[in-house]
């Protein structure tokens, strides 16, 4: 849970209470009239003279009621939309169909690890289409729009692991675009951020070899299977060293999938388009470092 949870819930519960009351009154009168004035009991209807007073009440009371709801919602919104200046800034990269979190010191992670009781400001960046950064437990949601800087912030008050979901429909594997938000003690967080190896409970890709873990963390497996089934992109199993038919600048040719080829496919995927697959992969220079590409290649070498 976070400080925002209570803020949003307050407004929700107020509106819920008012709505239940109104619904009860409406249904009560509807049923009461239908029974009390049924034709067999009240054969002669009596006209009700129009009363400006009653009509004025019907305009004014709902107006006042909804005004209170507006103000309650507005106060909460102000809270949600003003990140304190001293927040820890995390860059959130959303892409089809995975999340990547980058801390101010350049540390990257597939799970959002945050310290307990600290303000965290998530700056949302989308690489392709619109995604929705949604943490239900914290009651925060904000779209990541390509070409537009947006953010959400929170201050976690309970330790534990929560879901981060994509709430804006983004294509085939939209419902699988899930990451974890893990709230940990501030000292552990700091140690982890500085590069100490800590596996937090609930983390998504614990105990994997570095190369494989990168493929998960950076979202490669959303489109490339580690088995041999065909997804959005070519499967990885048995890829290294195999013959690949590609189209380069409109010309079809056959190449061997060696280290150079894989490197090029990561940094400039539009250059050689593997036949039978659409040219949809975004260039991934900003997401993986040279060092990381090396680890991925050495993992793929072993994936027979």
């Amino acid at each position: 849970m976070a400080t925002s949870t209570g803020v949003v819930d307050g407004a929700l519960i107020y509106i819920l209470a008012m709505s239940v009351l109104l619904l009860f009154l409406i249904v009560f009168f509807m049923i009461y009239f239908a029974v009390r004035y049924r034709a067999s009991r009240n054969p002669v209807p009596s006209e009700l003279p129009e009363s400006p007073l009653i009509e004025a009440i019907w305009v004014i009371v709902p107006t006042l009621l909804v005004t209170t709801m507006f103000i309650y919602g507005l106060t909460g919104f102000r809270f949600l939309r003003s990140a304190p200046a001293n927040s820890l800034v995390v860059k959130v990269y959303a892409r089809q169909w995975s999340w990547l979190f980058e801390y101010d010191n350049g540390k990257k992670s597939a799970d959002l690890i945050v310290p307990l009781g600290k303000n965290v400001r998530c700056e949302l960046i989308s690489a392709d289409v619109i995604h929705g950064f949604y943490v239900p437990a914290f009651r925060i949601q904000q779209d990541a729009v390509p070409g537009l800087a947006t953010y959400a912030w929170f201050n976690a008050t309970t330790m534990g692991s929560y879901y981060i979901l994509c709430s804006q429909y983004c294509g085939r594997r939209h419902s699988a675009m899930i990451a974890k938000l893990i709230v940990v003690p501030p000292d552990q967080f700091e140690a982890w951020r500085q590069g100490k190896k800590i596996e937090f409970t609930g983390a998504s890709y614990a105990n994997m070899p570095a190369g494989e873990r990168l493929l998960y963390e950076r979202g490669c497996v959303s489109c490339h299977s580690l088995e041999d089934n065909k997804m959005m992109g070519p499967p990885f199993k048995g890829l290294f060293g195999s013959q690949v038919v590609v189209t380069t600048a409109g010309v079809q040719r056959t190449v061997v999938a060696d280290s150079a080829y894989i490197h090029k496919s990561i940094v400039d995927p539009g250059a050689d388009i593997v036949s039978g697959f659409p040219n949809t992969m975004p260039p991934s220079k900003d997401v993986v470092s040279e060092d990381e590409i090396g680890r991925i290649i050495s993992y793929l070498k072993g994936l027979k």
Partner: protein
Amino acid sequence: MAERETHESDYVPYFLHKGKYPGALGWLLATDHKRIGLLYLACIATFFSVAVIIGVIMRINMLPGHVILTAQQYNAAFTLHGIIMVFLVVIPAVPTIFGNFFLPILIGGRDMIFPRLNLFTWYLFVLGAVLALVSVFFGGGAVDTGWTFYVPFSLKTTVNVPLAVFAVFILGMSSILTGINIVTTVHQLRAPGMGFFRMPLSVWGFYATAWVQILATPIIGITMLLVVMERLFGIGVFDPAKGGDPLLYQHLFWIYSHPAVYIMILPAMGVISDIFPVFSRKNIYGYKMIAFSSLAIASVGSLVWGHHMYVSGQSDTAGIIFSLLTFLVAVPSAIKVFNWLATMYKGSIQVEPPFLYALSFIFLFSIGGLTGLFLGALSPNVQLHNTYFVVAHFHYVIFGGMGFGLAAAVHYWFPKMTGKMYNKPLSVVAWLVVFVGFNIFYFPMFILGWEGMPRRYYDYLPQFATLHQVASIGSFIMVAGLVLVAGNLLRGLVAGARAPANPWGGATLEWTLPSPPGQEDFEEIPVITHGPYEFDKKESGA
């Protein structure tokens, strides 16, 4: 009416009338408003069935352990369900079926003002429907964008977006022309003495709706054309890579698509306003307030589209403005509900099938409207946006509101349209099954959404399984009820008892005609001397 019986010999029901063309051509080239209304009815009923079947398939898929679709198929399924329901069923249904059939009669005219244009709108409608259908099978396959076609996803996906959005453009043209026809008809063809404040409230509903159709639909037209142009020529006005702003697409889309909700609900509210006085045997309470609240909903409802965008990246200031305006539109809706209830007060109430639907309309629409307050409020919306709460909310408003309003209209006007009566006890049973199924189906979705289940998810976290199961079971009950409703009506059509001219004791003009009406509706254009709900005066009028 007494006068009518003396002319019994030259009276021929409109569907037996021998016109210029024989047989099927007599229907396909019909310019008679009643026949065109029925042409629309046939199409819309078919599309509705298709969309319901797609919906059931999705619900089966959401049963724990019953995956029958791939992710791509599921995405296409909810997209098609949305496109068909929104553009082919809910937006056109009440204005084109009942607007066409009854609007001219209710104002004492013989037809719509532009009968050939009227038929043309039906052909455009069919063309749009065919294009939408064709887009499923050609050029990359069924659209998977959701019915909102949000850019840049709709620019990037490999499926046949251009044809589908072009279909929406065509359907928009059809809707605009229908709106023009309705406004002009109301202005030109009212019978002598039929002042604006003697029009039945259903006519006010059609009239207010028609204005929204005219003023808002061109925006979706141009937006859809822009998506086509983007796909075909890569112009870039919506593509962020070329400087375009995806949020402007959302603005344009919702400038139409939010008012479209009022295109859906206003005519249904109008019909409900006609039904309440008839079954309470009492003049409607606050006629002018209801009439003006229709116009208020139509106009204020066009200013609130930004409440779909609180978390979209829209500025916070704009969010606050739109939230305030959104709450204002709740007021005229509340006024209508209060006026309907006041109409029942001290009435002489007969709970016939149409009234049962009208009463359940109030219940379901109230839930839909009140949950709209959650979504209109800024901070709760941040939690509930794009979750099942929204899905439940709009199904309560659209299906519970417009759908039950439509069902009320069908059960109210069925005897007039067909000259036959359906089985009343069976229709009450069918209503009960639909009503119960509906609530088991959609109510759990409020809770799912509150707990954080996003919409348009092929898959879900394990904690949501139970509620999904309940919702799916509810959907099966509801569909069973719908089959019962349809079966009862069809049976009534074929083998029902003959309906009298005025089975409900209504005081509006359609009940002065025989059931079903003759080709010309009125042999002589009536002179109107009193309001539409003055039951004690109905003998002296018309």
